[in-house]
């Protein structure tokens, strides 16, 4: 059947082709290859939408399309394949939509600003999109890892786009290195999955989550390296989680993300909203059937998520640059998604992944628009009063901010609320450790409301505080267009899954629940709920979603209100100065960077230098010592070579005599 699924590879390949085009002939194309990228991503978007509708008709697709390494005689065969189910279909639409909008926005941010090296930029964007799409459709863990790494490469190339300055190359290096550190654990996890199950497929009866489930039931035996099956699955799960923590910028591997703001702002939007950072959370959702088997893994995911959400939100409170605030909000929001996944809220986390993609892309693009207007000055203390000068940017940015802060009825409210609700009910239902994570997540809501509106108020309200803010640079349709699209989505995307409203009215309006409830057997949300109950011991307590929803809304409003109270002046002051020493700590990110840089500079570097000295001195010293000894002894022995023939004759004779005597003694002649 030549259905839409036969065109799914094209979704991935189109941006890849645009990468090749931009790289090869970008210099000769108008706009440095931008149109190739826009056409390609828009094509991918249309195909994704078509796929989406096909999937909503109940069809799914799980097919191997390429054999990468064919194992002979019973060795594992490594393949590439496509897995199109509701989750990946939804993600395809999100990624292609954001990628298209980012391409369009780049026309305004890069082309109109007279940047050089545009073919390189658009090639990077194309490859980035293609890698992420390849990751989304991956049907096994190895393929996912490979595209995961390619995403890392692209982030390196794009963050370091302005390579002639000292900052971006350093930030790019840090981003790649920190995520590589996480990917190390991921790779060990991939290898362990292959060694344990002999397959890394996500879906089907021969998939590793399914085999793991059977192993726990004792229906199938796998190689668990001498551990209890559940213990081993927990270890493997945590190893894979290492990659997630790195890419999704969770504590303690979050330090690369704020630095990554050195890249062009559209790239930040792409990285933080839909691609690289989302990849980590998406991976956990993709193999949720495996994590659901291990309550320990789930608790760790929830705790990491809750802690990161709170931890990053507090740092966002004191930042001066608009992009820095957004960076920390990204870390914090991905913390929520991890919290949702760990707390048993698969749908909630996926929901938040979707809404966050929209409103965070919106906020970054909005910030990009502000940065254009401000002639690339990012300091919020030099902005102010931009509300009247750039209304489109302001209202769309406000829409995104309301969503980020979690104010009803904007998208972020519904999803964040559901994440917290799911964690709460499962925590009360017999997994008290989740309550700790829930408390941290709930507290973070307050900080989120505060820093979001501090940012909005400082940027757009009050009086202009600098010359550029008084006379901002205008922006074109190519900036405003994407903002409007995303602004509408940020306001409305939450309506697809209004759990509290559904509870109140009894209407069947939880569309996302229905959406993720069907699909490939073993990958549905129903199956995950079963697994959570039977394997992880997660039980939902009987609480309605209304009260917890009101609590988090109240906290968000309190945070926003405090920000309004403090910063809605014409000439706001730095109230955070009152925090004193705490501000210094927060401003320096709890010295997380410092200790990691210290590890690299003061521990690893001297260690490697010491190793070098050891190598040159001791190991090579032995080698050179051997040669010195032979040279020296040769120097002594050569004195025999006196040049006098008679001496040689004497030596010869003596030698012969000695030889004969020796033979005689040994041979017993005497």
């Amino acid at each position, binding site marked *: 059947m030549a259905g839409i699924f036969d065109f799914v590879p094209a979704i991935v390949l189109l941006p890849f082709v645009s990468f090749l085009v931009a790289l090869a002939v970008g210099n000769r194309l108008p706009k440095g290859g931008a149109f190739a990228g826009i056409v390609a991503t828009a094509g991918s978007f249309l195909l994704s939408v078509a796929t989406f509708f096909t999937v909503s008709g109940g069809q799914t697709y799980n097919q191997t399309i390429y054999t990468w390494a064919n194992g002979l005689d019973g060795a594992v065969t490594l393949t590439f394949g496509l897995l199109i189910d509701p989750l990946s279909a939804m993600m395809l639409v999100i990624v292609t939509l954001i990628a298209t909008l980012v391409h369009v926005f780049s026309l305004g941010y890069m082309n109109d600003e007279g940047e050089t090296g545009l073919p390189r930029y658009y090639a990077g964007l194309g490859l980035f999109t293609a890698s992420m799409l390849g990751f989304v459709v991956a049907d096994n863990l190895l393929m996912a890892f490979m595209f995961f790494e390619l995403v890392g490469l692209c982030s390196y190339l794009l963050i370091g786009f302005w390579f002639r300055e000292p900052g971006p190359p350093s930030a790019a290096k840090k981003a790649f290195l920190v995520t590589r550190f996480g990917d190390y654990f991921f790779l060990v996890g991939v290898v362990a999955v292959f060694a344990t199950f002999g397959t890394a497929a996500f879906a089907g009866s021969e998939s590793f989550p399914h085999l793991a489930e059977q192993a726990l039931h004792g229906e199938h035996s796998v190689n668990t390296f001498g551990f209890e099956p559940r213990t081993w699955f927990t270890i493997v799960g945590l190893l894979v989680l290492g990659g997630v923590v790195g890419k999704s910028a969770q504590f303690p591997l979050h330090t690369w993300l704020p630095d990554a703001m050195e890249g062009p702002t559209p790239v930040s939007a792409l990285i933080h909203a839909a691609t690289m950072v989302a990849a980590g959370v998406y991976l956990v959702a993709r193999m949720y059937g495996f994590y659901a088997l291990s309550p320990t893994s789930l608790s760790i995911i929830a705790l990491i998520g809750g802690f990161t959400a709170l931890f990053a939100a507090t740092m966002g409170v004191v930042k001066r640059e608009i992009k820095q605030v957004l960076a920390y909000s990204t870390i914090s929001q991905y913390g929520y998604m991890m919290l949702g996944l760990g707390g048993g809220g698969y749908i909630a986390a996926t929901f938040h992944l979707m809404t966050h993609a929209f409103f965070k892309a919106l906020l970054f693009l909005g910030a990009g628009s502000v940065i254009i207007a401000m002639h690339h000055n990012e300091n919020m203390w030099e902005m102010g009063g931009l509300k009247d000068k750039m209304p489109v940017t302001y209202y769309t940015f406000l829409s995104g901010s309301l969503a980020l802060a979690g104010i009803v009825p904007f998208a972020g409210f519904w999803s964040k609320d559901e994440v917290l609700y799911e964690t709460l009910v499962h925590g009360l239902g017999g997994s008290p450790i989740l309550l700790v994570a829930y408390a941290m997540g709930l507290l973070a809501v307050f900080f989120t409301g505060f820093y979001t509106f501090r940012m909005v108020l400082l940027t757009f309200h009050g009086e202009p505080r600098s010359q550029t803010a008084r006379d901002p640079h205008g922006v074109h349709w190519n900036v405003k267009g994407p903002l409007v699209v995303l602004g509408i989505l940020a306001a409305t995307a939450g309506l697809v899954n209004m759990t509290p409203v559904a509870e109140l009215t009894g209407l069947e309006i939880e569309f996302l629940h229905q959406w993720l409830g069907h699909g490939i057997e073993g990958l549905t949300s129903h199956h995950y709920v079963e697994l959570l109950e039977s394997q992880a011991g997660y039980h939902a307590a009987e609480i309605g979603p209304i009260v917890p929803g009101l609590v988090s809304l109240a906290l968000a409003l309190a945070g926003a209100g405090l920000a309004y109270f403090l910063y809605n002046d014409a000439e706001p002051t730095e109230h955070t100065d009152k925090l004193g020493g705490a501000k210094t700590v927060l401003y320096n990110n709890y010295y997380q960077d410092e200790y990691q840089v210290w590890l690299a500079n003061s521990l690893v570097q001297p260690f490697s230098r010491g190793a070098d000295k050891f190598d040159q001195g001791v190991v090579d010293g032995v080698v050179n010592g051997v040669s010195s000894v032979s040279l020296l002894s040769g120097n002594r022995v050569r004195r025999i070579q006196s040049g006098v023939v008679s001496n040689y004759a*004497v030596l010869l004779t003596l030698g012969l005599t000695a030889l004969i005597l020796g033979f005689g003694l040994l041979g017993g002649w005497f």
Partner: protein
Amino acid sequence: MVPPQYYLLLSAAVFCIGLFGILTRRNALLFLMSVELMLNAANINLVAFSYVWGNVTGQTFGLFTMAIAAAEVAVGLGIILVLYRDFGDVDVTKVTTMRW
């Protein structure tokens, strides 16, 4: 038939004379002569054993040795001539340029 011991004694005597010459003499010519004596001592042995065992391999080698000795004399005398030309002397202990 003369017993082989006599040949061996003769050969040993000639060899020792040659050896003595090499160890005590400083004149290159005498040196060369002494080497020839030693070679011929070896030759006597070859021929003697050939005679004792009744096959001609030893004698064949004896002939070979003579041929080589002839060549050696030619080379040796050439060296001595050069020695004399370059150093004005044929005293082997004075020519010590080929040392370490």
